[in-house]
């Protein structure tokens, strides 16, 4: 095994839980040397897991090659290979895991399976300098309010049905909007919402620290069919209502835990309106507001590489025969020995 404390140690991380295939390279001190992403953009509809996995397999070698050339390291310099082991879509996860296993055994370096949700939290902490935050993690597949307590990240609140990003995406598709590379549905909805003026009353469902978004989505799709309101007003009302719900539960967790930092992470963290709402509650409770830079908000390999560093340097390795993907791997199932 190579010396894991030396300055020139690198972890290569592979992310493939959903529609993105991405490879990142991080030094053991947390310098991100490369973060190459190749998103799969469906022609129509949502992510078809098999089609996305096919895309990942097709682009894998090029993305890897690009990550090596961007980071200016050679394959033999890699000390450890990490990959998103779950949660996510089976075919997509398996593709990434296969690439990771092959690479690790070819290079004869250890393999580390990383929890995707934890990677989002850790990259947020790395990039913002947050130490012990209440984290609102919002993406296409997840909506989780968590905070660290006694060895693990605990889930304080989450969605009881669909994820926030999913709610935005489905509405956008129902409305016939189009996404493009570099401009996902969330950004399209955000732009339209900025032009909205009229706020329409919609179902607001907060249950304890959990939320439910499916009723809101149904109500919106019904309004859409009635064609009485402009798409701008609908997007505006959708964002205001859904974001208010996640902000309220984040504030609840903040008041409950009395932590002094709030971290916003995940793909929807790129939304400026959501940022301003979460910032407001952070200020209200004298907590520092931290938001992950947009390059690291979406699914990315860098976060997997960095979390791989944290895990590996604290004695976590995943033997190949235990590297099965975990489609439903919850955040709080993972011991995190690297957090004090």
């Amino acid at each position, binding site marked *: 095994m190579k010396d894991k404390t030396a300055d020139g140690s690198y972890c290569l991380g592979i992310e493939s839980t959903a529609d993105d295939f991405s490879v990142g390279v991080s030094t053991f001190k947390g310098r991100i040397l490369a973060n190459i992403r190749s998103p799969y953009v469906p022609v129509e509809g949502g992510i078809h897991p098999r089609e996305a996995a096919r895309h990942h397999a097709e682009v894998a070698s090029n993305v890897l090659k690009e990550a090596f050339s961007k980071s200016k390291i050679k394959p033999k310099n890699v000390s450890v290979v990490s990959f998103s082991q*779950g*949660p996510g879509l089976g075919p997509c996860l398996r593709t990434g895991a296969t690439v990771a296993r092959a690479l690790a055994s070819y290079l004869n370096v250890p393999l580390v399976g990383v929890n995707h949700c934890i990677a989002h939290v850790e990259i947020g902490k790395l990039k913002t300098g947050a130490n012990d935050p209440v984290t609102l993690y919002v993406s296409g597949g*997840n909506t989780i309010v968590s905070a660290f*307590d*006694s060895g693990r990240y*605990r*889930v*304080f609140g*989450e*969605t*009881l*049905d669909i*994820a926030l990003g999913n709610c935005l995406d489905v509405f956008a598709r129902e409305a016939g909007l189009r996404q493009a590379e570099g401009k996902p549905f969330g950004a399209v909805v955000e732009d339209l919402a900025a032009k909205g003026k009229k*706020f329409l*009353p919609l179902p*607001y469902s*907060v*249950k*304890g*620290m*959990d939320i439910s978004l499916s009723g809101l989505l149904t109500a919106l799709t019904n309004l859409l069919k009635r064609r009485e309101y402009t798409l701008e007003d609908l997007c505006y009302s959708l964002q*205001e*209502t859904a*974001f*208010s719900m996640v*902000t*309220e539960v984040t*504030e*609840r967790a*903040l*008041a*409950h835990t009395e932590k002094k930092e709030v971290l916003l992470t995940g793909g929807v963290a790129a939304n400026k309106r959501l940022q*301003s*709402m*979460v910032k*407001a*509650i952070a200020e*209200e*409770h004298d907590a520092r507001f931290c938001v992950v830079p947009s390059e690291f908000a979406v699914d990315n390999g860098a976060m997997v590489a960095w979390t791989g560093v944290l895990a590996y340097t604290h004695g976590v390795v995943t033997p190949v025969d235990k590297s099965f993907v975990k*489609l*439903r*791997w*919850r955040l709080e199932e993972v011991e995190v020995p690297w957090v004090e």
Partner: protein
Amino acid sequence: MSRPLLIKKGAEASLYVADWHGRKVVMKCRLPKKYRPSSLDERIRTYRTIHEPQLMHEAKRAGVPTPTIFLVDVKNTIIVMEFIEGKQVKRLLAEVSASRRQLLCLKIGELVGKLHRCGIIHGDLTTSNMILSPDEKVFFVDFGLGEKTRELEARGVDLHLMKRALQSAHFRFAAECFDAVSKGYFRVLGCEVGKSVLDKVREIEKRGRYVSERREE
């Protein structure tokens, strides 16, 4: 009247202790939230200010100790209620002996049962919303997310939240605590209803994201 003293800045409201006509009271003020649109904000604050005291009053009738309401100011979204001396169950659970913890959770389960029997859903059953008074009564507070319904789904969500709160705040003895809560709940509602609610809780858990039991289906 002495100046109100801020005792807790919650997520939803600020709690002040004040002297009100010679009584020690809690003033629960739901202050405007600037992050959300004002019409949504007013809707939420007004709704909760009206419903919370109603539910607290009905809870009392159901045999569940709650602070007595003295004044409801809908316009300013302020509720003035009795100050309960005592300790938050959240802080107690970790301090007390296992047998005392057992008894406390049993009592909590009975109280939740009494609420549900009378069609009241608390909506935020965390141990920080329960206060043990010196005369050994458990007071339930913060009914802001509550509702009136006898639906199995709502009862299930209520108990699910209780379970989740135990897991996040008291993970070391979450399982034994929830077992005791269930036992108390069964005592009040009977085995048949109790079982159907617990089955619902399991169903709700499975509905959640990334739950391993779902793999078998």
